[in-house]
């Protein structure tokens, strides 16, 4: 009696067809696999760039913030000049009055001397850039500066402007 009841129940159980659903699911999966493109990992450097004016304070958070130091901004700013050679490549880097190697590691070591020395007041930099310099080369220098600020445990404050003809020859 019990066996026949079990057989009847089995016969009445709904038979859901899984195969068409699986077909549909595989089609959807194929669509997503084909259309998926991993977005490249892009980073960014944030800067507050004010219109050119004398003795501008470069503050990363807000242009309206006042620096707490008593030293004037001009004394705390490390002037840097980038000159371009053929094809827009970086030809010369001048930090302060000193010409240094265009190699990024050498530049990093040199910047450490400026930013890690407690006797020097520099906590920001203004980079004057040759108009012919390629953006990729500029980013290489900004990257070195940003690393140097991080190593010196200072917030990266950097800005740039166009180098005028005949400036600091």
């Amino acid at each position, binding site marked *: 009696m019990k066996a026949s009841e079990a057989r009847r129940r089995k016969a009445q159980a709904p038979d859901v067809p899984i195969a068409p659903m699986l077909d549909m699911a595989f089609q959807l999966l194929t669509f997503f696999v084909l259309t998926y493109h991993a977005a490249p990992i892009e*980073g960014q450097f944030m800067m507050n760039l004010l219109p050119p004016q004398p003795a501008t304070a470069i503050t990363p958070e807000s242009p309206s913030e006042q620096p707490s130091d008593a030293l004037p901004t001009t004394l705390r700013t490390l002037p840097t000049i980038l000159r371009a050679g053929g094809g827009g490549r970086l030809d010369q880097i001048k930090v302060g009055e000193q010409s240094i190697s265009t190699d990024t590691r050498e530049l990093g070591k040199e910047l450490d001397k400026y930013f890690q020395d407690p006797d020097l007041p520099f906590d920001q930099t203004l980079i004057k850039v040759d108009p012919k310099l390629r953006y990729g080369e500029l980013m290489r220098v900004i990257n070195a500066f940003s690393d140097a600020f991080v190593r010196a445990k200072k917030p990266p404050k950097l800005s740039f402007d166009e180098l005028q003809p005949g400036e600091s020859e």
Partner: protein
Amino acid sequence: MAGSAGGEFKAEPNLTPLLDVVFQLITFFMLVINFSNDNYDKRVKLPVADSARPVEDANQANVDRLVLNIDHEGHLLEGNEVQPLHKAIETIKRHAGFVRLGLKVAGKKPDPGGGLPTVIVFRVDRDADFSSLNSMIKACQAQGFRKFAFKAMSGS
């Protein structure tokens, strides 16, 4: 005997776990897929900078941003249109107008310094010269933009 060995055996593989896995894969792809690639213009080849930080901070991600793609010749890429400087200035002016209108509608005021709160995100081709970029920056500054971000590829 011969009849019972004939058509009685029926292979019924359990497809439910397979369907579960497939649905999980579909869910994954639905979550990670990004149809709006309007900010990523493939014509722009970004430089590489290890220190460039991805936008992870929620506050940073929520700020109003305007992405400007600049190609290797220093032209602004606005959709399918390649705009030289004079046209790019008009585009930037138009965007600044929209930002001001948005602020007015929201009842907000610009910064005390007169700057607009929108961050201009530059995606500049690594072979573009600095003068082109500087012209765009000056055009943005003239319209009241003060906050800028410069994109680069993270890592080598």
